[in-house]
């Protein structure tokens, strides 16, 4: 999107997936649109643009936020992680591997949001796989999926936590 630069444009400096990025944006530009349209990171999906569906979830300084509810200018000086930051070149992240193994995605539209939510949950509680089903489901209830009925997502998050632990122990 070649958004014409308005007179009140601001410069935003932020880190995206570990890389320093700079953009000149209108104050009203959403962070989601900055990522998608200006920086070309289209893995962050917009499902509702009012903060309910969770498809646009990213990590902002490590915390999950809805990038449709954050202005680009609010990300100035902060670190953003998107789904594009998960895989290491050709190798999928262990959490992505778990999603694939458990068929935790069908159309894939909600998947980036679920991955980042799950990554945050696992980092906050590396033993989240040992929690009971109800707690895990509550923790994931901020993201909507219309295809899978959630069962395989729950299984994938559990398995992803185990895989991440194993990867860390090996490292």
């Amino acid at each position, binding site marked *: 999107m070649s958004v014409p630069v308005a007179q009140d444009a601001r410069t935003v400096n932020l880190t995206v997936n570990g890389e320093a990025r700079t953009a000149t944006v209108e104050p009203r530009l959403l962070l989601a649109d900055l990522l998608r349209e200006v920086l070309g990171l289209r893995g962050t999906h917009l499902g509702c643009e009012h903060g309910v569906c969770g498809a646009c979830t990213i990590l902002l300084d490590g915390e999950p936020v809805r990038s449709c509810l954050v202005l680009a200018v609010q990300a100035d000086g902060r670190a953003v992680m998107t789904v594009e930051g998960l895989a290491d070149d050709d190798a999928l992240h262990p959490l992505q591997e778990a999603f694939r193994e458990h068929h935790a995605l069908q159309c894939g539209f909600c*998947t980036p949001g679920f991955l980042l939510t799950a990554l945050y949950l696992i980092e906050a509680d590396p033993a989240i796989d040992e929690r009971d089903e109800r707690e895990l489901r509550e923790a994931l209830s901020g*993201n909507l999926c219309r295809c899978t009925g959630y069962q395989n997502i729950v299984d994938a998050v559990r398995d992803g936590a185990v895989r991440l632990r194993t990867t860390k122990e090996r490292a």
Partner: protein
Amino acid sequence: MRRREDPELLSGKGRYIGDLTRPGMLHAAFLRSPLPHARIVSIDAQQARSMPGVHAVLTADDLPPGLGAQPCTHLFQGQRETPFYALTGDRVRYAGEPVALVVAESPYLAEDARDAVVVEWDALPSVGDVEAAIADDAPLLYDDWPDNVVAVFEQEMGDVDRAFEEADVVVTERLRIQRHFACSLETRGVLAEWDPMLDELTLWTSSQILHIARDLLSDVLGMPEHRIRVRVPRMGGGFGAKFHFYPEEVAVALAARATARPVRWVEDRLESFLATVHAREQVIEATMAATEDGRITAVKADILGDLGAALHTVGYGPIWLTSVMITNVYEVPNARVRARAVATNKTPLGSYRGWGQPQANFIVERLVDSMARALDIDVNELRRRNFVPPDHFPYKSLHHVFDSGRYADCLDRALGMLAERNWPQRVEDMRAEGRHVGIGVAFYVENSALGPSRILNAGGVEQGGYDISRVRVEPGGEVTLYTGLCEMGQGVKNALAQVLADELGVHPDQIAVVDGDSHICPYTGYGTGASRGASVGGASVMKAAGIVREKIARIAAHMLEADTSDLEMEDGDIFVRGSRDRVVTMAEVGRAAYIRAIDLPEDEEPGLEAVAAFDPPQMAWPYGTNIAIVEVDVGTGKVEFLDYLYVHDIGTVINPMLVDGQIHGGVAQGIGTALYEELQYDLDGQPLFATFMEYVLPTAAEIPRIAIEHQVTPSPLIPGGMKGVGEAGVIGAPAAVVSAIEDALRAYDVRISATPVTPATLLDLLDEAATRSHGAAT
């Protein structure tokens, strides 16, 4: 087998309609009616046109003369015509109807300018309720009609009146099924490129109907099909709503022509609630007759379907389908249905997973519950006494011919799971503790493998029912499959690749599947819906693969100096049976076919590909049992699942992982129907929803784990034996869930007559029950 597209989707590299860009691309925003019914007095777009970054504002006055109305491909007998166009110029009939299109440098600027377009509306009386719409004094949506009834369909078999006269027991149910919709997480979107030099249109669209969309564009624009190329990128779910051809697809194409620039429009979520077809809403009154020994002798039903403001692509098809499925899986000799499709000032009705089948299943299975109570026999025993037995197939139901079924086996296996998990005892124990726990069962049958073409055409459907596949072995021995079906997340490309891999003896990794391009993919008759991808699509792949396989064998036999009947194909090798060292590879055969004609048999033509069509001889009929075990909190009205069991028969299972995924998602949507989702309107047709806070989709916290078992009885009609599964999960869930809730509240004798069963609804019903029992006590 794991899915091939997953690494791309998991790493954020999937490209959906909203991710596509073109050099110089502009963005569109629609101005939509805020009123349910109004005349447009004037539209003043002068200011909008002069705003910075704005390239065009289109209204109905700017549409080309001769532009066609939005087509309806399902022309059932006797239905009225309700023409509407890409943009409406004179009179809007629902809130959300598009009246103008603004094209600008960014979506932000397009929306700014859209808000600067001034429309003077002359509000007209309106109606937002289907029963009010058939009242004598109802406002009329179409002035030259005597009423708001768009179509009446009636069908009858046997002697219904006599059956009711002679019945020992008669039960009646009156149910209201709410308006809700497919609601894929990705909304719709269009990207149009119109080459002004060649006068060619490329339309990227999030659609389930690749060639049908192209043909309808051709009809509406008056432009030959070969100058229109429809392309479908990654799709973020469809569930039927993207089976339709929308005004926005025409309007955005015209905007691209008007501006000579690529134009993209992506529906926002509010628009999706208003501009994407709605589904399901019906009021049904139905009556069932039976003998005292539990033989169901007759069913009659009167169905009132809320069509919304106009007939969309599939006409009133879903309402019709409810009516003809009214006997479900039961051998009922007498039946009579009347279905009326009624216009109201609401968004047009259309397709959603299952079409009219969930409603039919809901009313029949509710009647079966009532009948079992009235006869005081076990409801599953009542089912067993009335199932069409296996030796009565093919069985002529009210309208359709059912191909095959082992219904009692399927039900018994599900009840076996229930017993294995000790639910009957556990429910008793929980009740003894004062908990409100119940078990609900629903048995469904599903119409799949749509065609056959001639039957569809005879019924008024201006679409084929076949599929065509093209299979090509490349010079390097790899295989390319071209399909007209669209991948929308269901995994159809994986399933077709597996079928093809088996036929040619190659690994699925050696196969690329190409979809989503009307210029290069073979024509699909009906599009991607009606649970037909694996069955009809799969059978056409097998047919084309069979032709290619024969040619491979002929070439290999020549190269090996062997007889074709002595050859086997495995792992990409073609070898003489019993002597694996007498072998040629698929690559060697491919090289002979394209490059080294010197290696071909003398009379063999070069090339190694085949195109084949499959049109099913009949529809296929999968079936299954849903069992819901729920607990109700009588203090809050909250319903919680303790378990969910599912046993079904879809014929041959190509990929159990994909099939289970379809069931999980379908049941979740059926639970959404039963408990959560509603597009509520006021009585005038003003929408009472705008966000996901009003339209409640179930989350991981609401949907239970679903235990699935597959009974596998290959279809006798489909090569490969696949029946299809896409819609199966959604059909029986509402009836099972509602039955379980009533069972949980048996102490209060609560009767549920409408969905969704929200906590507020349940608390009201419990209040009524308390008043009743208080009244009875005094």
